[in-house]
């Protein structure tokens, strides 16, 4: 009886794991590459994943696009933001030029946007 119970438990656990792995969408982005590029460009000096620094957190940015139902606009807008240095208002109320990311590779930029939107 005991062995039957434990076998059921193991099977259940296996089934649950399999179900979870099916339910999780396959990641189309490279998280490590995105973080490395952001780190290299000092983006984490002003942005954190889940903490407001001089700039909004990446989670907050992602939520802003999701709440407005404008996920489709996220990619072009964020890429423009990263590559054109617009004037931005910081959390302390002051303004400064947004840093320009040191890459023109669209694939790398899209990868960053996809990672942010996954948060």
């Amino acid at each position, binding site marked *: 009886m005991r062995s039957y119970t434990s076998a059921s438990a193991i099977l259940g656990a296996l089934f649950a794991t399999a179900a979870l792995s099916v339910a999780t969408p396959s990641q189309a982005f490279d998280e490590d590459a995105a*973080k490395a590029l952001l*780190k290299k460009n*000092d983006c*984490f*000096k*002003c*942005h*954190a*994943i889940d*903490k407001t*620094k*001089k700039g909004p957190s990446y989670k907050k940015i992602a939520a802003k696009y999701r709440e407005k139902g404008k996920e489709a606009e996220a990619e072009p807008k964020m890429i423009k933001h990263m590559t054109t*240095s617009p004037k931005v208002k910081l959390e302390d109320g*002051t*303004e*400064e*030029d*947004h*840093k*320009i990311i040191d890459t023109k590779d669209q694939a790398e930029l899209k990868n960053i946007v996809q990672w942010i939107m996954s948060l």
Partner: protein
Amino acid sequence: MKLLRYTGILLALFCAAGFSTSALADRERNENAKDLILKGDAKCTGCHDEADEPQQTMLELHPSVLAIAKTRHGVKADGRNPTCIDCHGESDKHLNYKGKDKPPKPDRIFTKGTTTPADIRNAGCLSCHEKDATRNHWAGNQHDAAGVACTSCHQIHTQHDKVREKPTQAAVCFSCHKTERALTHRISTHPLDAGQMSCSDCHNPHGSVGPKMLVKASVTETCYSCHTEKRGPFLWEHTPVVEDCMTCHTPHGSNNTPLLKARAPWLCEECHQSTGSGHYGYFDANYLPGGAAVTGANANSTSANPVNPVTGQKLKTTAPNPRLADRGCVNCHSQIHGSNHPAGSRFVR
């Protein structure tokens, strides 16, 4: 009525004082709210925080800004501890940069390739650490003269400073002192690789009154601090032992055990010339097999055709080179560092 007026004034003063105190406390709390480690560090850690260090596992390889919290310099309760700007400068241009490129670097940079002069980099450290008795000879010492800065050897933002830990210290010193590194790989050396001692056991890299930045005033004093049995006092002294151990030994490594500059008898003969010291009699090479004296004493052999009286082998009439024959000086002179025996003048007992 008067009492009522005084009470009102007192009440008003009390309220004002209470309000101002609480307002001040609130303001201070707000100002210090973002400090992560040291008082007033928020202006730096506002950007250089944990979010800026996504690869936490690399802390030891690339010391992070926040890792200073694990060190003595990160103890907030210690009022002597410097803050970020005490070492790195006010760095207004760095802090107030609003442009789109990378901001200018802080006033004082300590990383490799810095343009901040060594004396300016050292000033912050020396303002506290020069008072220490082991560091107060820094000014003018060889490292100072060579432009070596404190941070050339020390890592400040790390819990485990390599140069302050015995097993890893030598590697830091050897990054410049490459000859000494090569010497320590010879067969006879001090146990640096074994981690049993470190360079700073003999040398004081912060400067000293001794030669070669030794921890003591002389070579012999430094050596005696471990090799106490060589110190004496002895009834019969071997002069170089008292004068300078390095007359015979080399400290970093040698292929002649134990750390000898040359192999006996050549080492001994640098002072004790074979013709002058004279191992005459039985120990003279002439009395060793093949020696002229042996040959002459052999009644069964002729000078034209000498033979060894034991083996019957033919012998040469010329004596073997005494340098080959008399090579084990310390086989007999075992007390070469000094003797307390009444008859120990030759260091044989």
